[in-house]
């Protein structure tokens, strides 16, 4: 089922995104990938300083996956996300200031301080929410796709999930229903190799999670999740199919998280060499920058400009979050039910 991966090419054989998108859009993609990276580094730093409580799951190293999937999506399209969902949220269009505010537990946060990292959402840009339950978002995405179909809208819904979720019952129930009802939903498994500490080799009967698509009669596509163009191309195909009413697609985006599962991970299940290899040789941002320069889309100065802009954006966002008010204890029970006006 896996599609042939597009190799590095020139001229008429340019990788997909160089054919599909303008240089400005390509630079925007780099900007967002940096925004995701620096946002998470900033969050990690704030966490270390005690400004953020709880825990968080960082997706550093997976930026191309989030960005590539979201490139063909419109603002009206929707996603459901995971506990490792900061990248999805930013890629779909959320503002980092309101995300930081949420992480700081402030009223100006996307969830007014009720959700935090694990429930980060921005419904206005189509993100129906990160989810603390592995596999929790899959049936919800199918429901959202059912709405899209019943209301005859053009909307598609993407459900991000990790390799761990593919062993949850919800994954199988959701894929089956989406397929029998030919719903406009795209299942995106970001396979970073480990469900917490347990590798896919130990947890999953099939070699590739995309192999499971066969059981639900839908295309299963494997992409290099650290290659922005490959991810975006697969997403384009799946979105086209969904909008055409042909039903769901399962995309497996093979990637790697540089950090541990969460802030309490002691990293005992991966070797230093393995992590080092992914960080130095397969970092999605470095790969994309190199490619952009190779194809003359941007030069070193342009890259520096993006980095500086992102640095400033992140610094401003953290300031906004710090300066924002905390929720009133008296409002503790707000938003449990829909308040009657």
């Amino acid at each position, binding site marked *: 089922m896996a599609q042939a991966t597009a190799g590095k090419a020139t001229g008429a054989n340019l990788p997909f995104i160089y054919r599909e998108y303008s240089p400005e859009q390509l630079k925007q993609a780099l900007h967002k990938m940096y925004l995701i990276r620096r946002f998470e580094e900033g969050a990690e730093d704030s966490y270390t300083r005690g400004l953020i409580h709880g825990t968080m799951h960082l997706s550093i190293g997976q930026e191309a996956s989030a960005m590539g999937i979201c490139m063909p999506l419109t603002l009206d399209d929707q996603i459901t996300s995971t506990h490792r969902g900061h990248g999805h949220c930013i890629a779909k269009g959320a503002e980092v200031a309101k995300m930081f505010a949420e992480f700081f537990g402030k009223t100006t946060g996307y969830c007014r301080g009720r959700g935090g990292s694990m429930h980060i959402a921005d419904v206005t840009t189509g993100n129906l929410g990160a989810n603390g339950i592995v596999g929790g978002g899959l049936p919800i995405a199918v*429901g959202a796709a059912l709405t899209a179909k*019943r209301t005859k809208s053009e909307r598609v819904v993407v459900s991000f999930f990790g390799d761990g979720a593919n062993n949850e019952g919800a994954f199988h129930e959701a894929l089956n229903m989406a397929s029998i009802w030919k719903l406009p939903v795209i299942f995106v498994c970001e396979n970073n190799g480990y469900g917490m500490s347990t590798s896919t080799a130990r947890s999953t009967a099939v070699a590739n999670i995309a192999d499971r698509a066969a059981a639900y009669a839908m295309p299963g596509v494997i992409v290099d999740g650290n290659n922005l163009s490959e991810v975006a191309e697969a997403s384009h195909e799946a979105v086209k199919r969904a909008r055409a009413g042909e039903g769901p697609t399962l995309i497996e985006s093979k990637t790697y998280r540089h950090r541990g599962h969460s802030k309490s991970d002691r990293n005992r299940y991966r070797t230093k060499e393995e992590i080092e290899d992914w960080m130095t040789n397969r970092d999605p941002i470095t790969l994309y920058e190199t490619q952009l320069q190779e194809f003359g889309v941007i030069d070193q100065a342009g890259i520096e400009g993006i980095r500086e802009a992102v640095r400033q954006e992140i610094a401003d966002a953290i300031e906004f979050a710090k300066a924002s008010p905390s929720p009133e204890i008296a409002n503790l029970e707000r938003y*449990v039910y829909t308040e009657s006006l």
Partner: protein
Amino acid sequence: MDQPVRELSYAQAIQEAMAIAMEQDERVFLMGEDIGVYGGAFQVTGDLVERFGADRVIDTPISELGGAGVAVGAAVTGLRPIFEFQFSDFATLAMEQIVNQAAKMRYMLGGAVSVPVVMRFPAGSGTGAAAQHSQSLEAWLGHVPGLKVIQPATPHDAKGMLLAAVADPDPVMIFEHKLLYKMKGPVPEGYYTVPIGKAEIRREGRDLTIVATSIMVHKALEAAKTLEAEGIDVEVVDLRTIRPMDTQTVIDSVKKTSRLLCVYEGVKTLGVGAEVSAAIAESDAFDFLDAPIVRLGGAETPIPYNPELEKATVPQVPDILKAARDLVSGRR
């Protein structure tokens, strides 16, 4: 204003409510296992599929977790699903979506979304279906902030509360006692609602308040009739909603009668009766109590198959009579 009233069964009343909701609002649709041409395990959806088509009366695979999640996702994105569980026991398969997603989504997202999903749960014992098809799990869901949990006891309320549930912006869980489906009662034609969160005094009395839910309301009323001949004047409060609970009606009633008996089918311990009792103990009605509060609930066992055993697991009219007599005579 006054709509013509006919006799309908509880199941017919629910079906009528669903039909009216679907006629009035294009967003409303039904999901569940075998609710289409089969008509539902208890024939509640009946032939609605013929009227509204398979797109709006959707047979799902046997996927309670996924199905409930699809309903939640559809509700969040603008539809008004009514999801039928074949048996309330199967809620156990869908707890993740009900408890973690439907109930909490609005809160987790700081009010950015509402989840107007309705879930229907055929519940209760008395059908010989034994341990996995006879439970009364309403207290489970009643424990979850974000959900509303109702137990209509009459055809009139079944229709009016279902229509109120469909109109409600939040997730509403309806527990329908299976033995009530065939019970007939007066039901007005057309659209009307019965408010969620409001108890109903089914019978006024001076000597004892019986707070009952669902089918127990009818058993309490039957007992009240017998007790009346003995000079015991019972007030029967039909709780109707267990979350948010209308404790004020119970408090007012207990202040009048000074005695409280809770009757419910769910397992006695940590159940609805515990909540009602605690609400009274915490309220100003406490100083009006002239006898200990008594609970009659389900036995601390799974529901057994043998019909005599099955009957013995849940409160019956003689149990209510005995408890009421003991309370009023001062034997308790």
